[in-house]
């Protein structure tokens, strides 16, 4: 084959290796693990009150990175992490911007961010448990209240 651009191959190779970062070795163990796996710890829970600054919105198409329920508290803006079922599907909870809520959860560092992982929410005078004490998400959280009776947006 006639070589039209003899330097092109080297440039392509250079570009490839430049763009391939962070090229962890093909066969080496790659990990982002911390020294101790993260688990929800109910003993580290705190309760805070705030105003809903913003509610995650679904994009028009494609998957989106995880978004947070942003809470304006006395100590500043908090990344509130709710569950996939909190705002989606049957038995989800209606939360609107500007609404006063109370959240109980624990601060964790997830994906490099300080996040307030929420276990219970008080919205409109109703208390919803959105995670178990072990941190597992709850389907249809609006169908349950902590007293055992039901309420919320069905």
């Amino acid at each position, binding site marked *: 084959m006639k070589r039209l651009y003899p330097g092109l191959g080297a440039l392509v190779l250079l570009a490839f290796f430049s763009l391939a970062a962070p090229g*962890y070795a*093909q*066969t*080496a*163990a*790659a*990990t*982002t*693990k*911390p*020294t*101790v*796996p*993260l*688990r*929800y710890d109910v003993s580290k829970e705190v309760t805070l009150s705030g105003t809903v600054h913003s509610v*995650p*919105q*679904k*994009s*028009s*198409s*494609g*998957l*989106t*990175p*995880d*978004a*947070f*329920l942003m809470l304006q508290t006395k100590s500043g803006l908090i990344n509130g*992490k*709710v*569950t*996939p*079922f*909190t*705002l*989606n*599907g*049957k*038995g*989800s909870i209606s939360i609107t911007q500007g609404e006063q809520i109370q959240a109980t959860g624990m601060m*964790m560092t*997830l*994906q*490099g961010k300080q996040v307030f992982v929420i276990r219970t929410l008080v919205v409109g005078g109703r208390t919803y448990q959105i995670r*178990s*004490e*072990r*941190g*597992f*998400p*709850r*389907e*249809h*959280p609006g*169908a*349950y209240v902590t007293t055992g009776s*039901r309420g919320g947006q*069905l």
Partner: protein
Amino acid sequence: MNRKLLLVILVAFSTAYFAGCSSNPKHLSIAISTPPPASIAPGASVQIAATETGTTASIDWTCTPGNSAATCGSFSPTPTTSGQTTMYTAPPTAVGAVTITATSEAKGLAPVSVNITIQTNQGIAGAFAFYVTGLDVGQSTYSVAGAVLINADGTLTGEQDYNNGFDISSPANGDTITSGALSIGADGSGTLTLVTDNNAVGVGGTETFSVNFVNNSHALIIQADGSATSSGSLDLQTLPSTLASNFAFALTGVGPAGFTVTEGGVFTITGGTAISGTVDVNDATAATDPSLGNAFTGSATPADTFGRGTITITTDSAQIGNTLSYYVIGPEAIRLVVTAPGVTQASPAITAAGSAFGQGTGTFSNASIGNSVFIDQANAGGDIFAAVGQIVPTGGAFTGIADNNETAFSGMFVDAAAISGTYSIASNGYGSLSINPATLLDVTTFGVYMVDPAINVNDPNNTSGGGGALIVDLDASLAGVGVLVPQTDAATTSFAGNYALGLQDLIPTTAASGEVDFVGNAVATATLAGSGTLSDPRDLFGLGTVDTATFSAPITPDTTNTAGRSEINPFTVTVNGNGVPVTIPDMANAYQASGAQLFWIEDGADGQSSVFGGQLQATSTLGAAAAKKVKKP
């Protein structure tokens, strides 16, 4: 050479010459020069031709049985000239074997024939059991198990049990599948449509599944109709079957409080009805969970003509559920689904489904586990993760290599991590496996429930690839189920050829959560290239609820870890639907039990907020010839 010998040779030659001329005058011959395929569908048309040598006589086309358009098909034109094609049109019904004959009008020339099979769906028919687990459009984890009798023309009837634990379920005697159809192409992909008498399931009572047959007796399936999405299996039934005595089982679902639940164990059926066993439960709620080694009892009813029976749990029903339906695949394989007739939002119930496999006649020990690969995955109701790996046992200890993707919650993942630990298997096949902490992130503890070495847990009718165990993840912060199967071939060069593949992709983002499932086929060479159907009932991709997906990804064997591990990276998937295609830059890693069975999960390094897990299963040629090799119902 003496004259006598010469005379004998001349006589012999002359005899042979003239004998040949008696059936082949003037060196004439005829042959089918354009043969038909081995099988075609009823009413389908194909071109065929015959070519003569030594003559230009017309060729007449006939067929048996019956030599009519209704009984064996028709030809247009007939007669033909030598080499001229005729269009053969199959009869309108699946009549089975047909013989096509080309007869030359040249005097004395013997006809030539070719066989063809007229069949629907590559000859796939009979009684099949199915089950799926997944997430419906209302964000309820749900389960369906059922059975269908698929006729030769693809029509079907059957029954099923559906349960989302929240507001949709089947009555106590199940749903009747009043009609429906299986429709697949030569590549084994297609659709299974079930018309039920329950308007709450599917779309107005009709469920549509995308299927991809691995062989004549097994298909990977997903529900893909906009109402729900899920992954599971469709398997040929042997009916009636007398169930074996000892079983291992595992179920995955969501409990009545709305939290994920996984459970597994072993049980014995005595006298065909009395059940007693031991169950481990990880129901994500109580601080004391996982709850291990719970004794339970129950009773089973005999299976009906579709292979459906019921199991009533009399003790420990709070954890397992009050009633389950089972669907027989064979004496040592049943699908299980927890039932909840009349469930309402005001009174949620457990929903769960899974499998039970026979344990054979032998007893088990630590020596029952050899080199193995495993997959362990959450359901959509839990904390999302997927893990896959290899273990190499030595007595009650093991070493291995594994991948785990927990990125959906914490951003953590680990690839090709060295793992080690211990395991213990009791004589009844009930056991556990502990992975040394912090080597595979939060995945540390499995319940292990051994199955008959002759049973392939991923394809129960397959006489190869058997053995291993069902596993349940019994960790404090994760709940999942999976399988552990013997690794009989770790050579990554065996990862080649044609595959059916599926994946269950769990997407737990706050703004657009849900599940998508994929089933399709692919060819593995230096790349894995293929296509299939993607079910997206919540329209997370914005392209509609049922899309197509294509991919072509390089396969890079892991040459450092001789674990049968391959990296499929970049695994770029293009999703096509009603709009501009969406391209997803995934990465995936696979571990092989053999070249015929692989497990794969999404690599957390791709930075996606989703986690998928699934299987690749080598496909075999479908059709009548293959059908003879599998069990008949």
